C-alpha cells in the first residue's frame, strides 16, 4: 500500500530539502556553525569541502541519525526532528564507509534491506535481482561481500540505498578511496539515477566530482558555507587552471609575482621560488605569462599547467589552506585518516 504513492507524488512540490540555521556541536567543537540552503526537487546539490568541514555531520542530521542542536531541516516537507520515521521512509543513504555486511552475499544484503524497509514480500527478491543486474553485480551476487573489490562494495552500498526507491538520496563521499576507473563507473551510475528524477545531495572532496554531478555546489569550510552557486559560476570565480612557474631564486619569484598579478590570482608557494597563477583559461594565460616574463628578462626553471586542487579553491575562497582534522571521527575513522594523508601527499606533489 505505502509503496504505490510514488507516482502520486506532486512534481511541483517545491524544494526537496530545506535547511535553516543548522548547528551541531560535539563538546567544544562546532562541527556545523549555522548553515542554510535548499535543494529543489529533482536537482543535485554537491557539498564540497575538505575532511572536517562538516559535510558528513550535515548529512547525518538530514538523514535523522544525528539531532541538530539548533536550526531546522526538512526533507519533502517532513521535519527531520519531529518526523524522523517518515523522513527515513523517503530517503536513501550511502555512506563514506561502505556499510554492507561482509559476511552476507550481495544478494542477501539487498534482500535484508528489502525486509527492513517493509517492501511487499514478492517484490523483495525481484528488486534485489534488478539492482544487482543494473549495478553489474549479478556475477558476484552469491559471493560474500568480503571477497568484493572496493569498487564492487561501493556499487553494492549504493544499490542498498536504492532498495526502497527513495525520492531523496544522500551520498556521502561516494567515490573516496576508489581508483579512477572505479570512480568514473560510479559517476555514470549516479548520473543515471539523477536522470530518473531522484533528488540528490552529494558530499565530496573532489572538485571534479562536484563539477561533474551537481547542478549546484556549496563549498563549506569549518562548518560554514563559504561559497555557493552552479559549477560554472564557481569556476569563473575560482579559475579553472593553475600555472605554476618556478624560478632559480626567491628574488626573481618576488618580481614575477607582481609582474603576473594582472593575469590571475598569484601566490608565492612555500619554497619561496615558485609562484602559482590561477586563471580561467589555460592557453592564453600561458602565452601571456611567457610574454610577461620575456619582457622583464626573468628566466623560469619550469612552467607547469595543472587543474586546481581543493587547496587552491580553499585558498581563494577562505584565504587559508584547507584544514584537515575531523573534529569527531565517525565510525571506521582509521581507514579515513589513511586515505586523507594519501590525498594530502598527492595534493602537495
Amino acid at each position, binding site marked *: 500500500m505505502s509503496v504505490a504513492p510514488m507516482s502520486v507524488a506532486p512534481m511541483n512540490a517545491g524544494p526537496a530539502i530545506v535547511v535553516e540555521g543548522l548547528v551541531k556541536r560535539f563538546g567544544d567543537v562546532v562541527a556545523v556553525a549555522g548553515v542554510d540552503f535548499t535543494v529543489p526537487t529533482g536537482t543535485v546539490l554537491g557539498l564540497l569541502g575538505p575532511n572536517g568541514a562538516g559535510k558528513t555531520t550535515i548529512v547525518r542530521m538530514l538523514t535523522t541519525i544525528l539531532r541538530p542542536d539548533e536550526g531546522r531541516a526538512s526533507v519533502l516537507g*517532513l521535519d527531520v526532528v519531529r518526523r524522523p520515521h517518515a523522513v527515513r521512509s523517503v530517503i536513501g*543513504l550511502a555512506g563514506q564507509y561502505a556499510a554492507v555486511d561482509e559476511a552476507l552475499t550481495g544478494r*542477501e544484503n539487498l534482500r535484508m534491506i528489502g525486509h527492513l524497509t*517493509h517492501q511487499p514480500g514478492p517484490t523483495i527478491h525481484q528488486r534485489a535481482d534488478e539492482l544487482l543486474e543494473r549495478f553489474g553485480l549479478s556475477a558476484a551476487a552469491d559471493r560474500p561481500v568480503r571477497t568484493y573489490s572496493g569498487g564492487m562494495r561501493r556499487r553494492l552500498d549504493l544499490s542498498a540505498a536504492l532498495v526502497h526507491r527513495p525520492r531523496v538520496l544522500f551520498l556521502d563521499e561516494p567515490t573516496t578511496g576508489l581508483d579512477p576507473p572505479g570512480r568514473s563507473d560510479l559517476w555514470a551510475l549516479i548520473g543515471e539515477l539523477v536522470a530518473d528524477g531522484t533528488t540528490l545531495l552529494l558530499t565530496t572532496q573532489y572538485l571534479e566530482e562536484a563539477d561533474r554531478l551537481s547542478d549546484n555546489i556549496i563549498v563549506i569550510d569549518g562548518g560554514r558555507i563559504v561559497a555557493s552557486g552552479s559549477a560554472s559560476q564557481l569556476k569563473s570565480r575560482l579559475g579553472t587552471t593553475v600555472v605554476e612557474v618556478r624560478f632559480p631564486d626567491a628574488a626573481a619569484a618576488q618580481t614575477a609575482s607582481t609582474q603576473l598579478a594582472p593575469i590571475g590570482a598569484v601566490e608565492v608557494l612555500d619554497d619561496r621560488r615558485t609562484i602559482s597563477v590561477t586563471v580561467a583559461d589555460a592557453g592564453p594565460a600561458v602565452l601571456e605569462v611567457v610574454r610577461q616574463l620575456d619582457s622583464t628578462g626573468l628566466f623560469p626553471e619550469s612552467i607547469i599547467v595543472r587543474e586546481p586542487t581543493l587547496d587552491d579553491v580553499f585558498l581563494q575562497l577562505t584565504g587559508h589552506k584547507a584544514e584537515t582534522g575531523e573534529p569527531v571521527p565517525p565510525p*571506521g575513522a582509521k581507514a579515513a585518516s589513511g586515505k586523507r594523508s594519501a590525498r594530502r601527499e598527492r595534493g602537495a606533489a
Partner: protein
Amino acid sequence: MTTLSPPSPAAEDLGLQDRPPASAIVADALAIAHRNLIALVRTPTTLVFSTIQPIIFVLLFRYVFGGAIQAPPGMSYVDYLMPGVFVQTVTFGSVNTGVGLATDLQTGIIERFRSLPMARSAVLAGRTLADVVRNLFVIILMVAMGFLVGFRIHAGVIPFIGAVLLMLGFGFAMSWIMALIGLSAGNAEAAQAGAFPFMALLVFASNAFVPTNRMPRLLRAYADHQPVSAVNSAVRALAGGGATTRPVLVALAWMTGITVVFAALAVGRYRRTA
C-alpha cells in the same frame, strides 16, 4: 511538545507513517537475527573457538583436579561439574553479543540501519535473539561432551529441558549486559577486554567448579549470592534431582532483573550512540 503544529501536507499526501507498523517490531528483529545467524554459520571458527575453552575446562576439572574436589554428598563430581560448565559456556558466550554490536558500530552498518524506516529496537533484539540460537547450539554440544565424560541426567528429560530453557534465558539476560558494554566500548577489542574481568568474577568466584563451603567467609558470601551460582544450583537441581522450586525461582528472579535493567540501559545507550 509540538502537538500544535499541523502535520505536513506532503506527508499526508504520501500516506507516510510516523512509526513502523507493530508487526515490524518482530519482523525487523527476525530479519536482523537472520543476518547475524548467517554470519555465524559463515564464520564457524568463532563458534569452534568458543567451545574449545569449555571443553578444556571439562577435561581439566573432570580428570586433573576433579579427584581432589569434594562434591556435595550424594552427587558424583562430574554431575556437579557439568551444569557449571554449561552455565560458564553461555555466560562467556554472551561476550559475542557485545563484540558483534561493537563491530557493527565500527563498520558503519548501524549507521545504515538508523537511516532506514525500521523498528529501532530491532538491532539489539535481533542480535540478542541470534545469540540465543547460538547458545542453544553450544549447550547441545556441551551436553554431548558431558555424556562422553560420564555426566548423566537423573531427574528425567522434562526437567532437563527446563534446565536448558533456564540457561537460554540466562544467556539472553547476560547478552544485554554485554550489549551495553559493546555499545560503550566502540570497538571489538575493547568490548572483549572490557567484558573479561567482569565475566571471570562471575564465573570463577561461583559454585561452578567447587562447592563454596571451603571458601573464605567473605568470598563465600559473595559466591553464594550471585547470579551464576544461582543458575548453577537451579540447573543442578533440575538435572540431578532434589528440591527445585527455590533455586529455580532465585535463578528466574536474577535473570528477569538483569534483563529488565540492562535492556533498558542498553536501549538508552543505543539511542544516544551516534
